[in-house]
């Protein structure tokens, strides 16, 4: 946090603040200078904070009624849906909330990709964000297992079996993860425990993420540094708080649309069949937000290779600040990167689509081309592009384009 000279007005306030500078923190958060040209793509940080808190509060309530036992989990979910007052509402907020959380995080990540928010001096913010994303995926996966439906059970089986691909120790690791020789009650109870705990880790990382953000300050759509704070920035409150709130309300309207009108559209109907260790569903798919990675996994005709590429596709993102060496942050001034950014988006969406389809014929071919392109984008295209690209001239300041009418 930057140097702060805030002194409370009241005597008690001063006494308290000298001992625990909460008031200084509040003042810093209120006055925090924010680039005045931020667009609505910058409102997703606030939306994501809301999503995390909403998941934690609804999850706290669900844990009051849910029973983490292989024999009772499935019927306790039905108990929540039918008996508990407003249980249906709270469960639908939680299950659709996971999807909305991922929707928001993907927009947030692609915002960073387009505007170069991962570049110096914001690499740590980016890496913390990627760690949050990894934990989110782990938490969502374990949460999906808890209803103990067919998709829960077989999703858990498939994902935990990924670890069996590790040479030599793979089998032991899987047995250790399961607490047995197959996914069963011990797996369910530990997943419940960890599903409850991980959000607190996420919350901790979110605090670090915001702390790291407040050192250099926000990036902005034109990606140049703030020259004169008095000219180029506005205080966070009320300007950004009200804008974030407005964006959050729009987001909540869409969120409510899912909760009240299509609460099961993003889920899979097989998960309303109780887990059966003897029968695998005809067609196993993960939740939509994991589909691109699922496509990458299935595109490789080798067990270990598929797992390596799956994890590689996420870890490669952490190296992004060093793979892209362009000094210009915003893609507004990077004509080549702008094109490849959109190709990457189409590629990821295509991978998501084929991830939901059976792994055969044309779908498999698309998955393979898409996987190859995904890695080529980060390992070949970006490093080369960032060196040869002729970027467009940057404005002199954040205010400059407004004043000169460009």
């Amino acid at each position: 946090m930057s140097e702060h000279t805030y002194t409370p007005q009241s005597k008690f306030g001063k006494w308290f603040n000298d001992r625990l500078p909460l008031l200084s923190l509040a003042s810093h958060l209120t006055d925090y200078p924010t680039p005045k040209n931020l667009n609505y793509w910058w409102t997703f940080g606030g939306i994501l904070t809301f999503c995390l808190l909403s998941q934690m509060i609804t999850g706290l309530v669900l844990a009051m009624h849910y029973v983490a036992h292989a024999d009772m989990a499935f019927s306790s979910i039905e108990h929540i849906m039918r008996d508990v007052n407003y249980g249906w509402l709270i469960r639908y907020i939680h299950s659709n909330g996971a999807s909305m959380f991922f929707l928001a995080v993907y927009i947030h990540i692609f915002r960073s990709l387009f505007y170069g928010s991962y570049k110096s001096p914001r690499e740590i913010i980016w890496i913390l964000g990627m760690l949050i994303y990894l934990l989110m995926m782990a938490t969502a996966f374990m949460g999906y297992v808890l209803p103990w439906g067919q998709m829960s059970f077989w999703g858990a089986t498939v994902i935990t079996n990924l670890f069996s691909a590790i040479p030599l120790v793979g089998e032991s690791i899987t047995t250790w993860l399961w607490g047995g020789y197959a996914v069963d009650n011990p797996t369910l109870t530990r997943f419940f425990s960890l599903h409850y705990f991980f959000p607190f880790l996420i919350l901790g990382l979110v605090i670090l993420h915001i702390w790291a953000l407040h050192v250099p300050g926000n990036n902005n759509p034109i990606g140049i540094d703030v020259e004169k704070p008095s000219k180029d920035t506005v205080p966070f409150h009320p300007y950004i708080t009200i804008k974030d709130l407005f964006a959050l309300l729009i987001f909540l309207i869409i969120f409510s649309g899912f909760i009240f009108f299509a609460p099961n559209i993003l889920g899979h109907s097989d998960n309303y069949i109780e887990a059966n260790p003897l029968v695998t569903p005809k067609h196993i798919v993960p939740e939509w937000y994991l589909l691109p990675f699922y496509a990458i996994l299935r595109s490789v005709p080798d067990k270990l290779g598929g797992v390596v590429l799956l994890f590689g596709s996420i870890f490669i993102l952490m190296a992004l600040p060093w793979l892209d060496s362009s000094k210009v942050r915003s893609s507004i001034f990077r004509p080549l990167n702008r094109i490849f950014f959109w190709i990457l988006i189409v590629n990821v969406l295509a991978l998501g689509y084929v991830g939901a389809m059976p792994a055969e014929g044309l779908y498999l071919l698309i998955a393979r081309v898409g996987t190859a392109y995904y890695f080529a984008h980060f390992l070949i295209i970006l490093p080369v592009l960032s060196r040869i690209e002729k970027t467009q001239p940057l404005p002199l300041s954040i205010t400059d384009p407004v004043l000169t009418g460009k």
Partner: protein
Amino acid sequence: MEKSGKKSDRRDFLFTATYTVGAVGIGATIWPFIDQMNPDNSVKALATTEVDISQIQPGKSITVLWRGKPVFIKRRTETEISEAQSVNLEELKHPEKDADRVKKPEWLVMMGICSHLGCVPLSDKGEYKGWFCPCHGSHYDTSGRIRKGPAPTNMEIPKYVFVDENTIKIG
């Protein structure tokens, strides 16, 4: 002057209207999160209990569970009934006639919960041959009325009906 006054009125109205709608919305959102802790439908479904009393001998009592709490059903003897009926009401901490506490004098149906702090009293114990609460020493008579000790009121009588000679429905 007049014009600017009008403008600020309209803005005030918009602010108040926004805050009001916001407050209603937040309240409506919070309510489900509070109400989910109230008894749910599966709990409410257990609101009545039917008990077969044909096997109870005079002087004996049984304890049944209703809504998770014990209910005493006691078949009183002639002596116990006359004791309960002959008490001078002015001696009582919580004056109630025995006739008001039973539907048939032979049968006393009563919540088995001490009115002090919710323990279950022991039957046929205490100075008044009714119930005695081991937690803090409250003595109840054969009508379940508080006679001595810290409990403030008599033991509560639940809603019940005699479905037939041998069956009581509590709740």
